[in-house]
């Protein structure tokens, strides 16, 4: 990524596409943009009532409501960005068939929309942190780096799936199911410490999303959040999640590059 990619024209195009995305997303809805905050909040309320009030999942974790919300927000960002990206190439088919623009711009601009949403959601997390009297931890400085990791993972997945979707229209259904499984395979609504089987705990933490969510909770909410370093101790295994992120990104980028030449004729 350098001047060759982010030329003045490409930047202008990305800006306009992001603008359009935002204008169109909540068109015709009364609450409009408020929905991008309301959706995760409502999900949070439901999960809170079911898992915290009824099932008492979060006992023993300090500031569990904020802990839960942060997990939901990070997961939601990944979920939204990948889901919106999958059909973004096909959705913009009219553009791709009639104008020679760099195709990555479409995925990139859709990712920017998701990033803006993430920023808004993190604001709500901030408010919750304040209400819950959570002490500000100096480790919060790690949060941006953790989010960059999630973003790279989401970008890699988006590139891979959007290119595959042009050829195979099953991809979005498969991904929908995977994301549903992933939601429960990732320690979002339950603390990882509740899993007593060590092998299973390790298996869950190999998932980069589990690692990132646990790390971000550790960084922002409480040091009692179990991270990949604690689960695997000093071994090399702790690098597995990061390796997965890197591999997915490189594979996604290469596949997208190869396929994007033929988008115009395959859509």
């Amino acid at each position: 990524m350098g001047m060759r990619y982010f030329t003045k024209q490409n930047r202008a195009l990305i800006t306009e596409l992001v603008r359009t995305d935002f204008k169109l997303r909540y068109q015709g809805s009364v609450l409009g943009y408020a929905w991008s905050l309301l959706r995760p909040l409502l999900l949070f309320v439901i999960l809170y009532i079911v898992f915290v009030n009824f099932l008492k999942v979060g006992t023993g974790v300090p500031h569990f409501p904020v802990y839960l919300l942060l997990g939901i927000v990070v997961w939601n960002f990944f979920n939204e960005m990948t889901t919106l990206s999958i059909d973004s190439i096909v959705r913009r088919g009219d553009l791709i068939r009639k104008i020679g623009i760099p195709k990555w711009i479409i995925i990139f601009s859709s990712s920017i929309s998701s990033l803006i949403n993430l920023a808004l959601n993190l604001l709500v997390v901030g408010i919750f942190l304040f209400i819950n009297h959570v002490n500000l931890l100096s480790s919060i400085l790690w949060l941006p780096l953790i989010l960059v990791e999630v973003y790279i993972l989401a970008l890699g997945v988006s590139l891979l799936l959007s290119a595959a979707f042009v050829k195979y229209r099953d991809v979005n259904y498969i991904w929908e199911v995977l994301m549903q499984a992933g939601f429960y395979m990732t320690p979002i609504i339950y603390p990882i410490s509740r899993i007593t089987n060590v092998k299973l705990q390790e298996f869950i933490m190999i998932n980069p999303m589990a690692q990132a969510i646990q790390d971000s909770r550790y960084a922002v909410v409480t040091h009692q959040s179990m991270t990949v370093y604690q689960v695997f101790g000093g071994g090399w295994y702790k690098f597995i999640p990061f390796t997965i992120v890197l591999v997915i990104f490189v594979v996604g980028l290469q596949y997208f590059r190869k396929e994007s030449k033929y988008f115009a004729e395959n859509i």
Partner: protein
Amino acid sequence: MDEPAISVIGLSKNFKLPHEKNSSIKSAFVNFYRRRKSYEMQEAIKDVSFEIQKGEFFGIVGRNGSGKSTLLKILAGIYVPTTGEVRVNGKLTPFIELGVGFNPELTGRENVFLNGALLGFDRKQMAAMYKEIVDFAELKRFMDQKLKNYSSGMQVRLAFSIAIRARSDILLIDEVLAVGDAAFQAKCYNYFEKLKKDKKTVVFVSHDMNAVKRFCDRAMYIKGGIMTGIGEPDQIADIYSVENIQDIQGPPEEPESSKQKLSTSHALKSKVLKQTAGVLEIEFSYTAGGHEPAYIGLSVQREGVSIAEITTPLEDDLSGTGRIKYSLDLTPLNPGSYHIGAGLYLKRNRQLLAMTPTKSNFIIKGNDPTKGGSLKLEHNWQKEE
């Protein structure tokens, strides 16, 4: 000598046309397992080479499905060539159609900025041009309405008004004239004049032979993905007009199986011999490879409008070298100046053997104030009691 603006070298483009569309993973697996090709290769462009010089207004002419739009899309960078190469020297507009990316749910104003970004303008540049664009499109009152409430004419006006701001050295224009009314066409023509004056390089795809003749410096004819002719726009336009007639009322094509061994058949020449006493005589000279069925396609035009189109299958096969005399009865025509285009073709592959020169005009002399237009029609009258 300047480098050409566009060089196309040995360009071919194949499309895989799936028989049964492989857009689910299951069918992909099934087909992979069976190891059969479930697609057909379509050769949209076959080994085309040409150059377009800087400042040239270059036409691409061909019938529907001839590959001209594919060619333009390759020039625009939308398709990648299967083999061969396209070298572009200068900044090229990447769009080939008006109003690309227009979104019906956005207002006219928002669409202007979005469309502008696709042409490579940022918001600041667009804001500076905005008033000009709206004035030119004559849509000031409608800019805050959603595009879906625009008529198609209004949309085209807006799109055109943005597109002409594009500041590139090379412009690709596909069939713009097909979409608008007469007033819009006049605006297009003015714009083309301006492009010519500014010495822009233009690649122009059109079905409108008058526009091709009027604006293009050079043109090429493309048929079945093969470039079959390149040169004077008048000549190319005539090929198009004549070929078009045959495809409308055309002779049925011979099946592939009856392949005859044929050596090359040459186009020689043909000429309008003479015009005497209401008869026009045309002579075609040819060299045919073997015994070949052939036909003559002919069109008579007046002021660019075709008034008669005739296909004449020849009873005898062509062989060797020879000449054919063709005569046309002109008595149904009123006095005036006419243009004639005629060609001698092989039936097998519609290969052109001989064609009348571009400037084949004839004049029917006389002056009869009681008759106007091109045709004399038989008429009678009687007074009823």
